[in-house]
């Protein structure tokens, strides 16, 4: 990976972090409604993963989707506007935090029924297989989603029909407040792919370079073999499951220990060690992000609410 791409990944990770920190403030001020799930701590996962895709590869994820949206190239303005429910959001303010998509960026949502988007991801791959192209669908989901039937139906179909799907389990070690080993028969999620004869691996998700390498390898396998792959990415969310999380299920010590492995800090150290970017250069990017996020907040706050004509718009494609 060249310097430009490495710097781009750093920029995206910081942008996700700062955007969400501001989002959390706006949520507490009551400017953002509904459920909001922060990606803070997990930025290296989607950043490294999506940097490895071709533009023609589709991305679909669960409700923790702000970071994925940024990585897919959706602007901070649009993400912030959607969070505020404004008409300038990519879903015109009708989707909110959990439902961000922009098909022009091959980002297909933001889906909030746990595991529900996995068969839909298989369906994208059915469509691409039927069309005769070699597009890959990258489907991201949490560890909690691997215990529901949708996961198993989707993986079974993907392997049986040789669908080009990269199944990405973001194992942040808790399904809401339930630790993986309290909910899953196997705590190493990648083992579940074994039952379907599906190639799989596990990677450290706090290191964006390692994630990128693992994703590139998996995508290469899928593209050339025409078969699905399951990649388990080990990560940790630094904030609660959603904004209203009392966090009774884990200790402050545990959270602190993981925060020492901050993916942004790890990546800064990597860039310095490899002499790709010095602290000063990176501080410059941080300042640039700060301005971009401030502008996004201003853009979103100044944007109009959706008009009442939008209430009945887009229910059906045909009248």
């Amino acid at each position, binding site marked *: 990976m060249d310097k430009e791409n490495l710097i781009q990944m750093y920029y995206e990770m910081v942008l996700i972090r700062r955007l969400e920190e501001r989002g959390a403030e706006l949520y507490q001020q009551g400017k953002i409604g509904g459920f909001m799930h922060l990606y803070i701590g997990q930025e290296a996962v989607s950043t490294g993963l999506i940097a490895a895709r071709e533009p023609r590869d*589709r991305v679909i994820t669960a409700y923790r989707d702000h970071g994925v949206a940024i990585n897919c190239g959706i602007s901070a303005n649009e993400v912030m506007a959607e969070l505020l429910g404004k008409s300038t*959001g*990519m*879903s*015109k*303010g*009708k*989707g909110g935090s959990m*439902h961000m*998509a*922009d*098909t022009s960026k091959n980002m*297909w*949502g*933001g889906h909030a*029924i746990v595991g*529900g988007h*996995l*068969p*839909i*991801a*298989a*369906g*994208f*791959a*059915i*469509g*691409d297989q*039927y*069309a005769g192209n070699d597009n890959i669908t990258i489907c991201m989901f949490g560890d909690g989603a691997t215990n529901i*039937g*949708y996961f198993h*139906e*989707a993986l*079974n*179909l993907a392997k*049986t*029909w040789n669908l080009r799907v990269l199944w990405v389990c973001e194992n942040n070690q808790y399904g809401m407040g339930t630790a993986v080993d309290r909910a899953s028969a196997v705590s190493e999620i990648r083992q579940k792919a074994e039952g379907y004869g599906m190639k799989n691996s596990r990677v450290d998700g706090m290191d964006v370079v390692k994630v990128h390498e693992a994703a590139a390898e998996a995508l290469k396998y899928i593209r050339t073999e025409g078969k699905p792959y399951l990649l388990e990415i080990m990560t940790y969310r630094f904030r609660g499951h959603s904004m209203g999380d009392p966090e009774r299920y884990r200790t402050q010590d545990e959270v602190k220990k993981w925060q020492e492995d901050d993916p942004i800090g790890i990546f800064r150290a990597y860039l310095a060690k490899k002499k790709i970017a010095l602290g000063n250069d990176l501080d410059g990017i941080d300042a640039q992000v700060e301005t971009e996020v401030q502008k996004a907040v201003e853009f979103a706050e100044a944007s109009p609410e959706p008009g009442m004509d939008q209430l009945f*718009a*887009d*229910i*059906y*494609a*045909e009248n």
Partner: protein
Amino acid sequence: MARITMREAISQALMEEMDRDPAVFILGEEVGVWGGTYAVTKGFYDKYGPERVKDTPIAENAIIGGAIGAAMVGQRPIAELMTINFGFSAMDYIVNQAPKLRYMFGGQFSVPMVIRAVGGGGRQLGATHSQTPDAIFAHFPGLVVVSPGTPADAKGLLKSAIRSNDPVLFLEHATMYQVRGEVPDGEYTIPLGKSTIQRPGKDLTIVTYCKGLELSMKAAEDLAKEGIEAEIVDLRTLRPLDMEPVLESFKKTNRAIVVEEGWKSYGVGAEIVSRIYEQAFDYVDAPILRVAQKEVPLPYNRNLEQAALPQVPDIIAAAKEVLK
């Protein structure tokens, strides 16, 4: 005009649309090698091959979820549910995904998918395999729910459903595949969301659809022998619901009954009756009655099952009651 069965009409519609549009393909349990559990897709596998007639695992979420995904990226899948009762296993996709994706993402994509499903009682399949849960599905904005009562309508409506850019649930009845009827020769479609008069009359209005149409037509013949002329309005599409022909007929007859095979509580009849009261109250000359399934899980035993399902004499009795 040719006189063909409901099965042949549905089969023709599928084949004509597959020939017309390469984006159309079929997926479902036993649709291919087996030829469809109700033989609707018999011969399709040989004609179109495994790419266009896909045998799936017994996994309703994968079938309907997969169809939704393929539809979102530009194909036109027709997913077959072996019975609508198995649709409950994929309820999330039918009512919580397909009808909402377009709206929730600000119209960025649509879901041009048809789900064909068989429903209805009368074949002694027991309580979990015999339901007519149409009203449940018709509850959800964003879904189109179609249920034809004649071979001609089945063919024309299914062709429209396949061409529609919205998700359509197409409900067929398990006891009606052998029903015969006149079907126009050559290419034709029938628009979704349009009710129609299937039998003209002046004395009362019978509002019905699907199996209820078959029963109501028989009841109307018997009533005619007694000098009572029933006008039968066939809804054909439950959502979006076209009340125009219903209201027009009711304003003429001032008396109506609704015939449906599903349970009476919270059913299609409840909706129709409410709308007539809301939109034509001044024309009401008698309480509007509903003929529907008894409020029991359908039993296996033939006599018990038939006793639970609406029958022609029930319709005749209700018609006479509203004419009193």
